[in-house]
């Protein structure tokens, strides 16, 4: 039972992070390798807003999430916008460079010590018994709830709202979308904002659960296989991929070796790349034409 709960919480973490990768990749075919760092930045922003609004934690949370959304949009406007139309690889390397920069900045501003935002907000992380057999931490439960909400929200947004449909159009064929009067820059900026927003939720909830230091980057990177296993441009795939990766990781740690935890996602990733590079639900890349 405890295993199932652990898997569910880890899957929720990975799914929440993976949808950030998927959103950006689906819309602009760019892989955002700075997602883990952006996530970490959001958690640190919460630390600051928590000390600003120490009386009401909810305002602090909202402010931190809103700030992260702005960070995402700004990253697009000032950095990634210049890379549209360049080689995809150059854009990906730019995100890598951004990640390195953010890692340095975070330590410069907030120091490298482990921090605890839950304490700063005045919240205690207590564990809730589930069905008598296992326990789940409050933050873990919140993670599962938030992930469900965000996936439902994203689904409705992409399916029914005006901007959601525009986003899908821009992802399918940017040229035609632009010709139909869709402003690609607005759409891309929106995708970056949404992606950092979901990343921020993940980063904040993880930091509430288990404290905050630079190892969060690794969690962000480990969630990437989840996105790829499911198919880089499919949200349903990200959900399923997260479940697969989380199950593999928890079971391997439990039955084989705890040291494996950092490698298992990448082993699954390689297997997937060999068997079916485009993932479970992803669209196959087009054939090469001369």
């Amino acid at each position, binding site marked *: 039972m405890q295993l199932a709960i652990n898997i569910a919480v880890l899957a929720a973490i990975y799914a929440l992070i993976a949808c950030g990768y998927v959103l950006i990749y689906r819309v602009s075919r760019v*892989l955002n390798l700075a997602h883990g760092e952006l996530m970490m930045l959001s958690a640190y922003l919460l630390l600051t807003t928590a000390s600003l609004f120490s009386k009401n934690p909810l305002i602090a949370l909202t402010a931190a999430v809103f700030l992260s959304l702005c960070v995402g949009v700004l990253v697009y406007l000032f*950095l990634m916008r*210049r*890379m549209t139309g*360049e080689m*995809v*690889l*150059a854009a*990906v*390397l*730019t995100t*890598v*460079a*951004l*990640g*390195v*920069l*953010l*890692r*340095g*900045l975070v*330590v*410069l501003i907030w120091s*490298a010590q482990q921090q605890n935002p839950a304490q700063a907000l005045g919240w205690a992380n207590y564990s809730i018994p589930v069905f008598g057999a296992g326990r789940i931490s409050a933050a873990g439960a919140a993670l599962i709830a938030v992930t469900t909400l965000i996936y439902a929200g994203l689904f409705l947004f992409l399916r029914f709202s005006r901007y959601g449909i525009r986003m899908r159009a821009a992802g399918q064929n940017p040229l035609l979308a632009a010709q139909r009067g869709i402003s690609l820059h607005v759409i891309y900026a929106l995708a970056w904002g949404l992606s950092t927003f979901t990343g921020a939720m993940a980063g904040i909830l993880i930091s509430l659960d288990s404290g905050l230091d630079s190892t969060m980057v690794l969690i962000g*990177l480990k969630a*990437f*296989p989840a996105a*790829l296993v499911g198919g880089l441009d499919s949200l349903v795939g990200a959900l399923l991929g997260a479940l697969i990766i989380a199950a593999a990781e928890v079971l391997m740690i439990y039955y084989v070796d705890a*040291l*494996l935890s*950092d*490698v298992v996602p*990448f*082993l699954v*990733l*390689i297997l997937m*790349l*060999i068997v079916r*590079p485009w993932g479970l639900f992803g669209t196959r890349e087009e054939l*090469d*034409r*001369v």
Partner: protein
Amino acid sequence: MSSREPRASGYFRSSYDQGLRLIETRTQWTSLIAFLLALGAFPFLATSFQLDLACQVFLAVIGSIALMLLTGYAGQVSLGHAGLIAAGAFTAGILFKEFGAKFWITIPAAAAMGALIGLIFGLPSLRLRGLYLAVSTLALHFIVIYLGGEYETKRGFSTGIVIDAPRIGDLVLRDRKIWYFVLLAFAAVTLLISLNLLRSRTGRAWAAIRSHETIAEALGIGVAGHKLLAFVISSSMTAVAGALFSYYRGFVSVEAFSLFLSIQYVAMIIIGGMGSLLGAILGAIFVTLLPYVIEYAVGLLPNARSYAGMLAAFNYSAFGIVMILFLVFEPQGLVGIWRRVQNYFLLWPFKQKPLGGGRR
């Protein structure tokens, strides 16, 4: 093809053989000899610290040339370079620790190990391209590092493997001056091998694959074979660099081969300039020396003491900023700047090349 551009102000080649020559003009001969003399004289003038820097640069040069062959010429992106360096270093370390092997066994063994791992790294490239390939090498990096860490903990070397300095007869390689020449020789040999590969059939096949795989295939180039060859050659060079690194430091530990090291190597070839061996060298020098420049600059700040613990963070930030600046404003890298300067003097007093490139 940068190295094939005529270096003088006109185009004086009259046969195909001349186009293949590495050194064409008398000026190039004299500058080469002057450069070699300067390299030879350097260790007798430099301080021990400067020698250490030079040795680090040579090690980085070997690695970055290897990555340049793979990424800059054959067009196969790798984000797992640190994994290969680690593989070389661990091969040397394990052979030394378990069997007491001498360095003339461990270094070829590291090269063989590198070739083997390169083959494994390369296999996904037969199906994957671009982004997906980069991701698969990234994943392999983590797996190699895991295996290294596993060895360390299982054998009880959790802090790292200590390696004795190699000895040739009675000569123990401990003095920095001797190391300088050894590493210089290795870097020079790597450079020569690469230069020769690139002007041969293999190099042209790689260039064709980079430009367009399907067309390369249609032209009768064995795409799969040449891709794997690129991975094998690049990886075995890298593994040799890793083995040399372990001997030079006298110490191997997984902590030294983080993902950041891979990013640094990618940064070397970007900052240097893609598709140019000179770029690989310039990039290696730039990226290796940057942290020391930062350290110096931070030392100049008022109340420098208080920042001493944050040096790593300053390094990361500066490194990120420099990489972004190059990607956004100077995608051609340092070599692009160098060529512009060169062209300025070649064309002086004119500003533009004549139409048609002036090469008839």
